[in-house]
Structures are given as structure tokens and as C-alpha cells.
């Protein structure tokens, strides 16, 4: 179990107070709640974009809160995917494993796995500016996972997709997380995303209300 401890901070009027929260070692934990409940801020703290004094994130005996953004080794899928606009889909994925110091040879089986599982080969040679929203989402997912992250974090990853695509994307995510046996934390305001959750956490007003 990954343990989040002592996450207490105020941002103007908004106050976040999470004394303790556990994230599963395997499978998807969904943190859901209405807009403005502090989900994205919570994710920013985990990524290391917000500094919270006293905050601890114990993962297999190591406190990730003490590490820099790079050293935390997280896989993040942002809400708007944030693919690098001057690269193709494949170059985005290559950048991710090269950034972690992995060679093409080392990741070849994994790359093949993602290409097949996510159907990337049809569009990954194209510049990201011309691919569709659903294709962008799959590239972003492969990019986040190819660098062998400790944990996968997803910020409303389906919000830009239409209903039909959302359902298939949910299924793809669920099976990927199950096959790779990694922990994943997804932030969402959509109750439909709870269908694929192994663990559910409800957040409101900066506090965990229900687990």
C-alpha cells in the first residue's frame, strides 16, 4: 500500500486536509468528487508541482514527497494530454523512455505490447497536431507507461472524449492496469468512471468524505 500522510495546506479560501489516505498496490483507485473539490490540486501535490510542508507519500518504504518531480518516477496522463506539439506520436513515446535512460532495445517488447493493445501503429507516425482526441489519449497513455513508472496518475483522462470513445477507453485502461499490475490513481468527476475502479475515494471541499 502507498500511504499519503499529513496533506494539509490552504490556498486562499480553499483548504485541503487529508491526514491519511491509502492507494492500492495494484489496480485502479478512483478519486472522484464535484468540480472544485480539490482533486486536481491533490494530483499536483502528488506530482510535485505544489509544495506542502510536512506532507509524506510513503511508497514501498520510500518517501516520494522528498524527491524531485523527475525522481518520483510517475506516469502522468494530463487532462489535455499535453503531447509535445513539434513531435509525432511515436517521438512523444520515444522521448518518455529515453528520458528515463531506457534504450530502444530494452523497451522494444513493451513498445510492441502498447502498439498492439492500443492500436497505435495506425497513427503514431503522424504529427500530434493532426491526430484525433481518442488517438491523442492513447499516445498519452503509452507515453506515461513506457518509462516504467512506480504509479500511474490520470487527471480526468476521458473528459475530452465522446461517450462511445469513453466506454472503450475505460475498458482499455482497466485491462492495461490489470495486465501491467501497477498501481493507478485516477481523478474524475464522472461517476461512470467508478465502474472500472478497484477502490473508490470521494472527495469534497478538500477533504476525503468516503472510501
Amino acid at each position, binding site marked *: 500500500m502507498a500511504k499519503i500522510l499529513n496533506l494539509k495546506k490552504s490556498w486562499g479560501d480553499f483548504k485541503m486536509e487529508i491526514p491519511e489516505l491509502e492507494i492500492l498496490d495494484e489496480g485502479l483507485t478512483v478519486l472522484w468528487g464535484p468540480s472544485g473539490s480539490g482533486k486536481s490540486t491533490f494530483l499536483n501535490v502528488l*506530482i510535485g*508541482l505544489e509544495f506542502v510542508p510536512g506532507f509524506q507519500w510513503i511508497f514501498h518504504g520510500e518517501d516520494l514527497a522528498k524527491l*524531485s*518531480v*523527475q525522481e518520483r*518516477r*510517475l506516469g*502522468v496522463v*494530463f487532462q489535455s494530454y*499535453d503531447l*509535445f*506539439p*513539434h513531435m509525432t506520436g511515436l*517521438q512523444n513515446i520515444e*522521448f*518518455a523512455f*529515453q*528520458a*528515463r535512460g531506457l534504450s530502444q532495445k530494452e523497451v522494444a517488447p513493451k513498445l510492441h505490447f502498447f502498439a498492439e493493445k492500443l492500436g497505435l501503429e495506425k497513427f503514431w507516425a503522424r504529427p500530434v*497536431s493532426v491526430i484525433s482526441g481518442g488517438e491523442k489519449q492513447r499516445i498519452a497513455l503509452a*507515453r*506515461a507507461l513506457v*518509462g516504467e513508472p512506480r504509479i500511474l496518475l490520470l487527471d480526468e483522462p476521458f473528459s475530452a472524449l465522446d461517450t462511445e470513445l469513453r466506454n472503450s477507453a475505460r475498458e482499455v485502461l482497466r485491462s492495461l492496469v490489470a495486465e501491467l499490475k501497477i498501481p493507478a490513481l485516477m481523478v474524475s468527476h464522472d461517476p461512470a468512471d467508478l465502474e472500472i475502479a478497484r477502490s473508490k475515494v470521494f472527495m469534497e471541499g478538500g477533504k476525503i468524505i468516503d472510501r
Partner: protein
Amino acid sequence: MVRSASRRLSSFLIFSLFVFGLAFPYGVLLVKIGNLKIGNFAELFWALKNTAIQSVGAALLSLMVGFALSFGIPPLASRWRPWMTAGLFFPFFVPSLYIIALWMAHVSWMGVGNFIVMIAQGLIASGYVAVRLREVFESKLASYAIVAETLGSDRKLFFRKALGVVRPEMISLFFFVFVVTATSFAVPLVLGGSEGSNLEILIYEKIRISFAWEEALSISLVQLAVILLFSFLQKKYSGTPAGQQKHHSFFFVPWSQIPLLAYLGFFVAGFFWGLPGGIESVQRLPGVFPLFFESLGRSLLLGTGFALLVVLLLSAAVLQLKVKFFHQFLQGFVAPSTALIGFAFLFFPTSSDSLVFTKYLVAFFCLVFGSLYRWGIQNMIHDLNRQTLVAETLGAGSRTIFLRIVFPQVIDKIVLVSCVGGFWFVGDFALAKLIVGKEVLASLVVENLISSYRTEAGLILGLVMLVMAGGWFYLLKVLLSLSFQRILSRER
């Protein structure tokens, strides 16, 4: 730990280099002149009032005319687009002296006060504003335009409702023209007459007529304070991140090319108007040709050095992407007046020509770097910061992020801005006259002809100089872009 300490140290060193380099003229003037003094407050307020009227008026006019002209710019895919863009930039980046000399050759309208200064400055900046506005429309309004069109909106209604989205960019452009007008010298001097003296002219008069250095420096500091205050008032540039530029039929009105061509004709074709007379008058001055071409070679060489210096320093500025206050400093920095920068560097006597040219390069850098930064880099900072953050979450180190994410996206713009800077350098005569003095640069040969009433000859040689500089810096831009792309492709 060691790496982050060395990174902090290198950040500090780069920041110090910029602060020291850009604030250097102020430092020299403060040390050499000693005290500050304002002798005549009424005179100061009068010049301040003129500066405000001219700057606000010119900025508003350039926004209005620029908005109208922007609809005549051909779509992105058109092969005429780069030529039109270059033509619209022309009046803004060509020294005002040539524009004024061109107008004066045909119309007599000197000494008409604030109004004519406002009109002249506003028109000179309108082409630049038109190009920038069109880029903003294409990057920020294209997707809204599609939605509006499907909802049945026409162009007029769309722009009435959607202009709010680009308000931060419009305020930024207003500020840009405001600063350029508030620190301009040639236009208010020649066209404004005694009724249109601004702070810049007051500074010049204090130095040249009254030798009142303390007063000149004090007025310059007032000018800086006004501009800095204004820069704090402006909204942050990037309200929302810009997307990729896309064309939409709302942004192009074919008949709007008529005013656009009239504008280009007014500024560009005017140079060709006096061509026959100019050639004849140059032929009557046989000694001018060898002197001019020798000086032109030197100007182009120095201009190339200047362009390379700007490439280097803009890249260094981008390297400090995450240091927020560093970019706030560059965004708000305004150089002292041309006269004061020139005089600050004259405090360092130099014997050899190469030292004089080095001094001139550094002084020109201090004068224009703020403008080049604001044009080239400022609006990219928001997007690049976001991408840097994403790359960090993927585990990339600062070297990888710089070479693979940031640099490939900014280098073309940096090279373009630097080459425009080089072109600007070749055309400069005001600072060159103060620091270099002799007719060893092409702009000084041209300026000497114009100021000795051989205007037609001066204009024709000025045209040759600008055409050759334009061609050379275009070639340099292509060469530098290709070289950087080759270097970066090895990094992948």
C-alpha cells in the same frame, strides 16, 4: 544536490549577466554624473504630457488601423503571405529617418505638433500590429470561429463577441507601441517641432544645448518610471495558451487587400518613387560609391555579429524558462534613451576601431534587446513552461528538456528575431552617430547625405542598403535555421 546547486549557480550567473549588461548604461550614468536634479518641473510635465498624448494616440491608432489591415493579409497557405508580412514589418524596422526623409521629399508637414507625431507613429506601427493581430486571431480564435459559423454568426457579430478573448494580447500590443512611441526621437524631432517635444527630445536638448547632465539623467529616470508603471498595469500576456495557427474565412476579407496594398505602397513603393532622380544625383557624387560599398560590407559584418549575439543571448534567456522573475525583468525592462545610452558609452574612450565597434554592438544590444525579447520569446513562455513540466514528470533532465522540447520549438523564432535585429542594426544611424561618428558604416554615409540636403541620393543609397541587408539577413536566417535543425536532429 551538487547538480541542483550548480544549476542554481548557472541561473544566477545568467540572470546577473543580463541585469548587469542591460542596467550597465544606467549604472555608468549614475556613477559618472553623480546627482539627480530636475530644474524645471513645468517643462518636465509639459514633455510628459506630450509623451502621453503621442504614445496613447499612436497606440490606439495602430490598433485600429492594424485591425483593419489584418483582414487583408492573405491566408497562411498563400505564397504571398511571407512577402506581405515582410512588407508590413518594413516601416516598423526601418529607421524612422528614412521614412521621414521619404515623406519630406514629397510633402512639407514639419512642426505640426502632437497630432502629426501621433499619426506618423501610429501608421508606422500599424503594419506590425496587423501581422501580430492576425497571428493572434489564427492561433486563439480559429476554433471559436468554426463554432460561431455553425451557430449562424457572421464575421461582424463574431468579432464583436470574440475580441474579449484576445484582450490581453491587444493590451500587450498597445503597450508595445506605447513604449516605442514614448522613447522615439526622430519623428517628434522632425515632425513635432517645438509643439511636440517629448521626454526623449527634452533629454537630448538638456545634453546638447544646456549640458545639464543631471537633469537629462533625471528625466530619463522619470521616463523609465512611467514605462515601468505602465508595464505593471498591463494584463499578463498569455490569458489562455495559444493553439496552432489555423486559417478561417472570418479572418480574410479579399477587398481588404486594397487598403493593405495602399499602406504598403505608401511606405515601400515610395522608396522607388524617387529612383530616377536618386540615381542621377548619386552619379554626380563619384566618391560616394566606393565609400558606401566599403561601409556597407562593414555594416553587414557587424550586423551579422549582432544577430549571432542575439541568438546566443535569447537562447540563454530561454534556458532560464522557469525563473519567473527573470522573465518579468526582461518583460518590463526599458533601455534609457538613445542619447543617454550613447553618452554612457562615450565615457569609455577607445582608440582602436575594433573597440569602438564592440562598444557600439554592446550599446545597441542594451537599446533593443528588450523589444526583441518581447517580440520573440515572451508569448511562448507560458506554453513552454507547461511542456517543461510535462517532460519533468516523464523523468527528463534539464539538458534533455532544453535540447529536445524547448529549443526545437523556439529556435526558428529566435533566428528570425535575431536576423531582424541584425537588419535593424544595419539601418541604425542615431546610436551609430553618437558612438562611431565617422562615415565607416553605411547608415552613416546615408544619414550624412540626407542631413546635407542630398536627400534623393541618400534615399537611393538607403534603399540599396536596406535591400542588400534584407537579402543578406534572409540568407543568414535560412542558413542558421538549417544548421540548428541539423544539430538538433543529432540529439534525437
